[in-house]
């Protein structure tokens, strides 16, 4: 049994083999994995909101927002020896599970989260290798830094790998 590092909602963490890293129940949230294939170190963030400019609190949880979470994750990976030029990313989530006719901007949060994550990755010059985003289903994802494979489980479609 290999150890599984869990990433909660609005949380982030790093893992190395034989560990795997997992986050459960991504709805509108986006799971971002940044990894170094050579060093086999990876990090995952469970992003809830697109921008830290939405924060109305005095103290801020950086892992919650796309822009700040990816910066923290990058720093963590670098301090684990990862080489920024080698880093790649995979992402999943950002679903729109409910459709309301009187749709408030908050209900479109999934696609907004995906856009924000992509923009930030571009700014950080990290290439997106594969993605499984949008749709209407919740996802549970698990990344294996040994193989760089991301497995995605949904209720209706079972397990797939990207």
């Amino acid at each position, binding site marked *: 049994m290999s150890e599984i590092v869990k990433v909660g909602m609005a949380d982030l963490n790093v893992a190395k083999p034989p560990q795997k890293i997992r986050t459960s129940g991504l*709805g509108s949230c986006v799971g971002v994995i940044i990894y170094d294939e050579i060093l086999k170190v990876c990090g995952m963030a469970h992003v809830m909101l697109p921008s830290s400019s939405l924060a109305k*609190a005095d103290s801020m949880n950086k892992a919650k927002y796309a822009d700040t979470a990816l910066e923290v994750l990058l720093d963590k990976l670098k301090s684990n020896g990862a080489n920024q030029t080698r880093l790649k990313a995979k992402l999943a989530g950002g679903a729109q599970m*409910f459709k*309301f006719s*009187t749709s408030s901007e*908050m209900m479109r949060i999934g696609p907004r989260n995906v856009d924000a994550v992509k923009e930030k990755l571009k700014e950080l010059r990290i290439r997106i290798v594969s993605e499984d985003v949008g749709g209407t289903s919740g996802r549970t994802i698990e990344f294996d830094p040994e193989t760089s494979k991301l497995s995605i489980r949904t*209720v209706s479609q079972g397990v797939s790998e990207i």
Partner: protein
Amino acid sequence: MSFINRIQPHHLDILKEVGNIGAGHAATALSKLLNKTIDMKVPSVRVTSFDGITELVGGSDNVVAAIFLRIEGEAPGNMFFMLPVNEATRLIQYLTGDEDFDLNHPPYSELGLSALQELGNILAGSYLSAFSDFTKLNLQPSVPALSIDMAIAILSYGLLELSQVGDYAIVIDTEILEKIDENSQKTTGHFFLLPDPGSYEKIFQALGVPINE
């Protein structure tokens, strides 16, 4: 979340009473609809971290049928009625007379889903109108939306407003149960009420116990 620090135990009692009155009316409506005895548990009001909510909905992999509606008006918020998939299947079979309907096996018939959505609409509407009468606050439900998926992915929608001000939520959770015989009952579902951060002061104010600065 600054207001959480100012909330006193009697404020939580008031939220409990909101859950009690709301779910009480919903249980009565369900009882009439099914012609069965429906009971409810004493509501629990929990101040919990986002991770704690995962436990609240039965673990990260728990799959449920959920009806979600936005509450609009003077005290906006989110309401969920969540049922275990097998229980939702049984209710739909009862309401539509379609014994082949099974939420474990998609694709689902439109009629079955529509029946479940209407059931959710009636129950959540009863909950909300009792809540509105009790507080004298003007509240309107949005059209309900239905999803059969991971409970935590569904409930995360109710956390979006809250997540902008902190990492904690106040969840008013009321379980309703169906009586099987004298000694046993089983869970029908859970109501989760998650008022938006700005709504607490209004609810407390409306009931005469404002939060002191």
